[in-house]
């Protein structure tokens, strides 16, 4: 290992990067743009669901019932229809996601104290929505039912409303939302976006590093130079590692100042994990760069490998615990999951180094393993 030779490779690589203005600009701009666009725009809450109503009863009670959906922020009223066939068409065209059918004699039955069944038709193409929607509908029904029972008991049994209400709801549930009291998806999303930005942009920075030299032939200068394999690989990474490290700090500042996400944990632990994670993500790019022959292949494979598991298996949108066993294995084979734990832990849960050392260890193992793979793949004596 010779520091002077590493510096030489790093300087060359740095100059190449800096002279490509568009590339340099993008490598700093991209994470920031993502953070802002996704931080404000990527909303996971199921809200403003378009729905239509078929009210067969047209009574004051049925209107009262329907009104609860209309005034809710979870639903977005698209008008009423008079025929079930209209519902078919609207659902098929994705103009609505749900339809409520209130049966005839809705008011009459309820006033007589009989149960009534409402029909809801849900669009099942996005099963999670359908499921959440069911939950909303049941909650509306429950509240409405309780009022009806209270009213019914006061009217028929002569109870005072207070007593009737207690009878209508003997056991209640008090829910507390931890770590994210207002259940804002921004708070859970923004820290994870730091992971997304590092995981998706950093590998691409390095991905073309070696394969570009292979494709243009300039790699022969390296083959014939005194620089060793390890020196070359380290020197190649220095500029991209620097860029990504600057990005971590910038993203942290955006998360805390622009989005106001509380940072409760230890900055040291967070920063250490971030450095390890950058070593992992740039390592992935490097390994791909060594495996393929063309820049086109390196580009496409890196983008897909960086983006797809990051969206699906990192805990960004779906928690790892609710993946199937097979997918969980895949999630664990990928460094993004551990870093997501660290980022969310540091921001929202206020965990320190002691609570997260396993995640850090995993990241360190990945970082080292990827370096070893890269080292063994790189050869200065190519065949033919």
């Amino acid at each position: 290992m010779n520091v002077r030779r590493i510096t030489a490779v790093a300087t060359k690589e740095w100059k190449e990067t800096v002279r490509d203005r568009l590339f340099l600009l993008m490598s700093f701009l991209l994470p920031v743009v993502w953070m802002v666009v996704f931080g404000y725009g990527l909303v996971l809450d199921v809200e403003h669901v378009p729905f239509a109503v078929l009210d067969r009863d047209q009574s004051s009670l049925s209107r009262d019932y329907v009104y609860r959906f209309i005034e809710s922020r979870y639903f977005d009223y698209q008008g009423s229809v008079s025929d079930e066939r209209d519902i078919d068409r609207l659902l098929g065209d994705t103009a609505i996601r749900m339809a409520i059918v209130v049966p005839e004699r809705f008011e009459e039955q309820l006033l007589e104290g009989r149960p009534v069944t409402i029909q809801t038709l849900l669009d099942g193409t996005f099963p999670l929505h359908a499921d959440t929607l069911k939950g909303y509908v049941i909650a509306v029904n429950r509240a409405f039912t309780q009022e009806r029972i209270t009213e019914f008991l006061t009217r028929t049994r002569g109870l005072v409303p207070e007593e009737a209400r207690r009878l209508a709801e003997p056991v209640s549930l008090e829910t507390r939302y931890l770590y994210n009291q207002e259940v804002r998806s921004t708070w859970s999303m923004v820290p994870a976006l730091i992971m997304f930005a590092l995981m998706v942009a950093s590998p691409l920075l390095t991905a073309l590093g070696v394969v570009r030299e292979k494709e243009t032939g300039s790699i022969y200068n390296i083959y014939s130079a005194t620089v060793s394999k390890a020196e070359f690989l380290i020197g190649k990474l220095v500029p991209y590692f620097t860029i990504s490290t600057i990005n971590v700090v910038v993203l942290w500042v955006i998360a805390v100042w622009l989005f106001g996400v509380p940072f409760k944990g230890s900055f040291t632990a967070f920063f250490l994990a971030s450095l390890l994670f950058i070593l992992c993500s740039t390592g992935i790019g490097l390994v791909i760069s060594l495996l393929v022959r063309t820049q086109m292949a390196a580009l496409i494979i890196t983008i897909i490998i960086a983006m797809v598991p990051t969206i699906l298996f990192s805990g960004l949108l779906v928690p790892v615990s609710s993946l199937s066993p097979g997918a969980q294995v895949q999630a664990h084979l990928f460094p993004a999951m551990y870093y997501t734990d660290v980022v969310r832990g540091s921001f929202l849960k206020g965990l320190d180094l002691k609570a997260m050392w396993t995640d850090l260890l995993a990241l360190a193992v990945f970082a080292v393993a990827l370096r070893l793979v890269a080292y063994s793949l790189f050869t200065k004596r190519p065949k033919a």
Partner: protein
Amino acid sequence: MNRNDGTSLEAVRLWTLRLFVMTRKELLQLGRDAPLLLFLLYSFSLSVYVSGAGIAMQLNNASLVVHDGDHSESSRELIHRFHEPYFRFDGEVRDPKEGMARLDQGTAMVLLDIPPRFHEAIGSREPVSVQLQVDTTNAPQGLSAAAYAARIVGRFSSDLTLSRLGAASDGTMLMPVVDSAHRVWFNQDQDETWFQSISHIMRMITLFAFLLPAAALVREKEHGTVEQLLVSPITPLQIMLSKVLAMTLVILAATALAMVTVLKPVFGVPIKGSVALFFLMTALYSFTTAGLGLFAATVARNQAQVGMMALLVISPMLLLSGIATPFEAMPSWVQTLMALSPLRYFVDVTYGILLKGVGLELLWDSMLAMALLGGTMFGLGMWRFRRQFR
């Protein structure tokens, strides 16, 4: 006249022949890139399977710990109602603090806390409440867990009401209860593998349709081979069109592979609409996305730049067009911005054809939007490409 017809016919033949030769060249070039080809195969087969089978966004076995301060018949009855597939009972804790520690570590998601004298309170008809602590670091899942818990406790509570009133009155248990019969359309069992596998295919089509032609064009610029092409009798239109054609063919083949090997046999996705229409639409979508990619390629000078631009354009498309998250809930500026994303229309088209079985009579507007976007992008790319070399 006749001679004129002859020459123009000959010109058309020559034009098509040149386009064909160029398309063939692109296919050959792609075919020789073994790592890339292998990766393409993987992306449209195994990878579709893994994401289809592996991802369940619906609440599934949320880990539940219980602090039972009562240990009575009623508390056991209530705990018993928290069961799979929504909740997985992960043990009892002796003290709420211990439960909170488990939430901190992330080894449990929900803590149910039943107060002492729970049974007694129910017996003496006093109102009583149980506590639920939910980890909402992942907001949608946390909310979903809370909603299910509310459903369970609510049902427990209303059963109690009914039994009390039933016992009190003459045995008839009629109450003005409003209940819902849910009918889930297009996917009755809410089988998530359908949604996830179809989404994944759309994701892959988008990535490849953007990147393959874009990288192929920039490569020619980078290596200087594009100069050779431009001094040949081939027009810029043929150069660009041949790349789009070749890559669209590859993508259609890959999509067919995914449908034949994974979607139908493994997940049993019912293909309700017309398969021909679906492939036609996929071709249109590939063309549109390729137009975006080619435009980026005319801006970029090397493949690294094109990669960065792809990330800039594709990641918002993938995350905000409605295959990862509900589109309606997005802020209105995102919805406006996403009018420019062809994927936003392709999502409606794909689910429409594959799951809902609708045809062009409902999808024509999405088709028109894709065609307009694609035509515009392709035209702009053409214009820039010509300008660069004239």
